[in-house]
């Protein structure tokens, strides 16, 4: 069988492209090397839908950031993931930075970004009383949103699969050949024949392009460390707080995440290895030193978890999207910030490019735009909770105490595709709270074992060799 399109990479970019392509009568396969979707850069970022005014107009980033920003409401309505337009404030901490705010506002307005307002010190502190009193002024951007990026990936893929996407997880492309008009992808799990191939391999898109002889670019990993804070600080800021940006980074932010936890970060530091997701003492100090100048009430003692992600950075610092010198092979590379924001616009652009390259697009009449609503017990009213528990007792059994996640929700997540402890965690929040899985891990493992009908010892944290336990007699 020959696929119409094969997508390499199941991050937010690949997921959005897959979902967009499923609107048409096409045979599409998505190949992801990890055992869960969105497990790389897409999982480990700030979770911000950027307001649209940060990227320079004239760049691909600048164009797709604002276009993508405008598409998230409809996706959210259809697909049911954590998303809210909470607005952001870029703050000037010194008088000489006020000019930068004006410039940022002009840049946004030139791109059509709506609602930008300059706030003076008084207004800023009235809206955000916990900001440092050193604040001089701020730029308010109501179009900025916060999102659970991993949930967005799952929702997009779940919907694409409902509409016929084929998913090949824990599979990697190891070579690319041609037979006449057909691209032959040699993968760990055998050959995949396709007419078109979209390279959305993130950090590894340069290696995939090189395999195809379809581009001469290099991706450098730039690490960002993020720190999650205790719920004690819930509400300390209402908007995402940005300092003024530098050339490499939008700076260290204070982010009220969708679930209410405050997150601070990210750092921005080039690293040698595409696998270096280590957090560091230096990163920790940098983040907290910086954040305390913005919001003095935040203390390093409040840290409950940390992680690091790697941005896929091209020399140009811009996105690289388009057909390559090789027929049928499309590159989507250098998708760093604001890549998450831009993803839906990138997906539309890829469909246009594929059509230009000769792919026949025929609308699928029975395309299902929506996903069934997921149960989120903690977010329901008491009355709704009561009705749910009466109908299905497994929603009455709390597994994760910190985030109030029920057995029913965990079973739902496993049936939707979660295969690992992290898969359950990112779909349901079980294990994301204060105790970081201390109480619920064993119970979640039992549910995974029961639902997937695999031994307890086969359960992993995130696939591969990330085993959790062994049998007593077995040597690890």
């Amino acid at each position, binding site marked *: 069988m020959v696929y119409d399109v094969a997508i390499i990479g199941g991050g937010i970019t690949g997921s959005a492209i897959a979902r967009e392509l499923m609107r048409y009568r096409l045979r599409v396969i998505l190949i992801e090397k990890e055992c869960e979707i969105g497990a790389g850069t897409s999982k480990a970022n700030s979770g911000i839908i950027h307001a649209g005014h940060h990227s320079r107009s004239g760049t691909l980033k600048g164009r797709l950031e604002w276009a993508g920003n405008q598409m998230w409401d409809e996706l959210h309505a259809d697909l049911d993931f954590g998303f809210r337009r909470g607005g952001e404030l870029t703050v000037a901490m010194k008088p000489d930075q006020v000019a930068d705010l004006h410039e940022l506002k002009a840049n946004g307005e030139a791109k059509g970004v709506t609602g930008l307002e300059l706030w003076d010190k008084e207004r800023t502190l009235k809206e955000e009383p916990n900001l440092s009193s050193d604040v001089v002024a701020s730029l308010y951007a109501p179009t900025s949103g916060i999102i659970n990026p991993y949930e967005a990936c799952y929702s997009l893929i779940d919907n694409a699969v409902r509409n016929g996407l084929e998913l090949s997880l824990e599979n990697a492309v190891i070579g690319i050949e041609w037979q006449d008009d057909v691209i032959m992808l040699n993968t760990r799990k055998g050959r995949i024949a396709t007419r078109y191939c979209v390279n959305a391999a993130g950090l590894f898109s340069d290696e995939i392009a090189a395999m195809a002889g379809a581009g001469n670019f290099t991706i450098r990993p730039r690490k960002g460390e993020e*720190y*999650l804070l205790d719920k004690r600080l819930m509400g300390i800021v209402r908007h995402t707080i940005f300092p003024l940006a530098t050339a490499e980074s939008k700076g260290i932010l204070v982010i009220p995440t969708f679930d209410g936890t405050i997150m601070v970060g990210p750092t921005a530091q080039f690293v040698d290895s595409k*696998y270096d*997701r*280590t*957090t*560091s*003492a230096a*990163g*920790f100090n940098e983040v907290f030193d910086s954040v305390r100048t913005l919001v003095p009430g935040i203390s*390093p003692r409040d*840290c*409950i*978890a*940390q*992680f690091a992600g790697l941005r896929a950075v091209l020399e140009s610092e811009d996105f690289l999207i388009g057909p390559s010198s090789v027929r049928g092979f499309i590159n989507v590379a250098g998708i760093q910030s604001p890549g998450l924001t831009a993803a839906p616009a990138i997906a539309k652009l890829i469909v246009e490019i594929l059509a230009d390259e000769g792919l026949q697009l025929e609308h699928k009449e029975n395309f299902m735009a929506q996903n069934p609503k997921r149960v989120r017990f903690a977010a329901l009213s*008491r009355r709704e*909770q*009561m009705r749910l*528990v*009466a109908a299905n*007792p*497994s929603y*009455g*059994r*709390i597994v994760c*105490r*910190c985030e109030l996640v029920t*057995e029913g929700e965990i079973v739902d997540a496993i049936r939707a595709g979660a295969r690992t*402890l992290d898969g359950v965690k990112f779909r349901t929040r079980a294990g994301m709270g*204060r*105790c*970081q*899985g*201390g*109480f619920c*891990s*064993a119970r979640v493992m039992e549910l995974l074992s029961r639902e997937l009908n695999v031994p*307890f*010892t086969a359960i*992993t*944290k*995130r*696939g*591969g*060799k*990330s*085993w*959790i*336990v*062994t*049998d*007593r007699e*077995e*040597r*690890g």
Partner: protein
Amino acid sequence: MRKLTSPQLKSSYDVIIVGGGPAGLAAAIGAKEAGAESILIVDREQKAGGILWQCIHPGFGLHHFKEELTGPEYAQRFLKQVEEEGVAVISDAYVLDIDKERQVTLMSSVYGMHSIKAGAVVLAMGARERTRGAIHTPGTRPSGVLTAGLAQKLVNMLGYMPGRRIVILGSGDIGLIMARRMTLEGAEVLGVFEIMPYANGLNRNIVQCLHDFDIPLHLSHTVAQIHGQERINAVTVAPVDDKLNPIADKGWEIPCDTLLLAIGLIPENELSRQLNLRLDPVTNGPIVNSAMETSMDGVFACGNVVHIHDLVDFVTQEALSAGRNAGEYALGQRRPGDNIRLVPGNGVSYCVPHTISTHQTHTVYMRVRKPHERCSITFGEVYEKKLRYAFPAEMITVTLKPEFLETFHGDALVVDVHDRE
């Protein structure tokens, strides 16, 4: 293990107890002693008894029963007594809310959601373990980094091995117990690393769990880096300077497949926060008066949810008293309020209860900030208790009699620790 039958739920109880661990079970017995008729324990595990089921080692009950029991034996004695006393126990259930009139909303897969009136409430939710995030250990995020208590559950309750080559960070009691347990299971415990210059667990556990098994204890050392992409494959350990930062160039790498964390416990106060109880920033538990009553009328608390205990016997003692007071409250008996505030002074990290009264004998639980030899605990100028030694890891119990307090006329009594010549 015998499964308790599911009792019929009533619309009101004299006392509702949140949590069926050692604190909750003893509170039920205390409430019964005070004359409360109807008592309900709500426990969120499959079976009440709390963490005791996984503590299969001996060392429990020396104070309360005057004999040495294992954790499950200790739990079983209380469960039996609770059952004989006619206390209703529901497991696999969760308290979602308690309002000002003590209307308790609970949820369970068996009963669905219920709203039940309580004459008095006892909070006995226990504690949870601190995790890697709280100490922000640098490095990768592989599998095989877990708390000692979770490892204990995996080994003792579920029968699996969390790993074979084990490093332990922190010298809390659960970590020390697990050092011995894993060794007995055939694993290699490569060392226990404690950032402080003194151990955080009980001395008897240092001797019985480490020394007896030749497991090295490295004081003033920490894990500076975690290595491994999928599963942990090594840690870098290093001595720390006087600001507790690792001294990088003195560090060394230890290949391992597991890192157990025994870095302390934190009272489990999600519900207390939701009820807006006043909390003590040092203990992280509710502020309680001498009746173990919180800042909310008729809501009492005891056990690890108030402050971390090192012996279950002391939990029992405190919970019996809290339960008795809750029972009395439910029956409408009121006693004079407290008139003295206890203020942790020099070298003292906290005192529980936070207030006392002049008219009765009080048991005060407290901890010191650092180790002392030949020292005195003083309560203002009214009382002095001499100790041969005092360690932060070992809770100190002081009995204050009314006669000591008679001469005291202030409203705040400062508690200090002094070294004696």
